[in-house]
């Protein structure tokens, strides 16, 4: 394969990791979907969920009233927690390493010895991160479609795509935050730490908001709110919510350029 720019080279670096992630996320989704037929019959579950006031439950399966419906099942078993968790871990892993990883290894000096502007390196690496997360998203979507077909679930492919798209944007948002911190400070673990904390914070804020009254107004600062509150699986995409995530992503990329071009590079 011809590696002729930083974008392609960055993806080439991820090729093995991409294969494993696709495999992992695909298996996880399909295996989960296989449980649907047994859940579908257990309508009494819905009453349990509806009457159960246990807040911990809502933290991990969402505020669910109808777990036996296709949307209820997929949302509660996959889209509320597990799938976005995987997107986040994957995206933060790539985002934090994009600049800081090369800087810590010392290869950034080598790369920038050639005629590339720092802006161009940032843009290409940022796009590569976006592409990799989207790639994982495509596999997740395909696995949802395949899983749904296997268990004969009545759910539209386009709705699955909408929910996946929303998840990919959520992943890229956090990947972008990790990218920014890596580009600004050149320290991978710092970037993972901060972004990981923001991820957990954002998640909890979004799920606890509806339960803990005083948190409610703050849920809107959580990216998770824009990911799931409109329930893309049931209602399709809410473009205003997607726009919020897109703006945050662009902002992270822009700030990464600004902070990276101002500072000294470390020698690794």
């Amino acid at each position, binding site marked *: 394969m011809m*590696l002729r720019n930083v974008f392609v080279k960055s993806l080439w670096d991820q090729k093995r990791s991409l294969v494993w992630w696709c495999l992992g996320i695909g298996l996880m989704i399909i295996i989960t979907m296989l449980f649907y037929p047994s859940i579908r019959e257990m309508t009494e579950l819905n009453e349990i969920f509806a009457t159960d006031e246990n807040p911990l439950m809502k933290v991990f399966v969402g505020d669910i009233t109808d777990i036996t419906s296709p949307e209820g099942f997929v949302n509660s078993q996959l889209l509320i927690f597990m799938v976005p968790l995987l997107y986040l871990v994957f995206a933060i892993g790539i985002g934090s390493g994009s600049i800081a990883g090369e800087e810590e290894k010392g*290869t950034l000096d080598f790369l920038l010895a050639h*005629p*590339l502007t720092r802006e161009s390196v940032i843009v290409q690496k940022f796009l590569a991160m976006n592409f990799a997360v989207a790639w994982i998203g495509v596999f997740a979507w395909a696995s949802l479609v395949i899983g749904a077909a296997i268990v004969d679930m009545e759910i539209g492919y386009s709705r699955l795509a909408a929910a996946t798209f929303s998840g990919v944007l959520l992943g890229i948002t956090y990947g972008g935050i990790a990218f920014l911190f890596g580009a600004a400070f050149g320290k991978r673990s710092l970037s993972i730490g901060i972004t990981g904390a923001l991820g957990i914070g954002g998640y909890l804020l979004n799920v606890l908001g509806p339960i803990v009254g005083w948190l409610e107004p703050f849920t809107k600062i959580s990216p998770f709110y824009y990911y799931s509150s409109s329930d893309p699986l049931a209602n399709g995409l809410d473009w205003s919510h997607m726009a919020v995530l897109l703006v945050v992503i662009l902002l992270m990329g822009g700030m990464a350029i600004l902070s990276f071009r101002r500072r000294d590079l470390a020698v690794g």
Partner: protein
Amino acid sequence: MDSVISIRNLTKNYGKNVAIQGINLDVMRGEIFGYLGPNGSGKTTTIRTLLDFIRPTKGVVSVLGLDSRADSAQIRKRIGYLPGDIALYEKMTGRQLLKYIDGLRGGLDWNFVIQLAERFEANIDQPIRTLSRGNKQKIGLIQAFMHAPELVIMDEPTNGLDPLMQQEFYRLVEETNKKGATIFISSHIVPEIERLCSKVGIIRKGELVAVEEVEKLKEKALRKITFVFDMPISKEEFESLPGVIDVEVEGTALKCTIKGPVDALVKAASWHKVIKIISDDGNLEEIFLDFYAG
């Protein structure tokens, strides 16, 4: 002659720590310039400023007449650079890496790349992570020279190379220089600079303490000379000669150290019957040690 590297009043601080201070330096087109200094004296700091990896606290730097900050990418298009502690993409093979750079730079003469690899007996088909230190350095050298740059900047280039490869490297530098390229080398190895460079800048504790032609410096160098005569001679005869320091007589042998021209000493010796003369080539090392010690 035009100035290829021009450093004006360059200072770099890391917090309160001063890495280099008030450096003024011109490297002219066609020179092989040696940048010599002990560990931690600021060689790498200076070089990384030329490449715009770090930004001056004070001062301005221009390379090939272009501003080191505003025109950095243009500068880097025209120069070759070998980092001091080279880190390469470990997963790639040398070939993949060099192809990648070809992609980034465009328009490389691939035959020349292969030629360089053969010259250095570089293994370019094995993942870089499996290469030894010296073999990685070879890949680093190839990428610094392969696009026939106008200026090659190298930070301790012979790091890890065996003596044979060092010689090959010296030859490459000389050839490249003959074709018109300017070479800037940092090192703390005096004989290397002596062997290779036309001019040398000596940096100590962040300050440039001397810039001089290597030939001129050699004239000033201390030489150890031994004369063996056919009969014992007296020490006094030689002690007062200009430039002579440190005279020792052992039987018929006279050992002395001389700084500068040897003419007077040789003429004085010729009053006697000389059997043997042993002289070392002016040793720069001592001059540098002098400079280093301040």
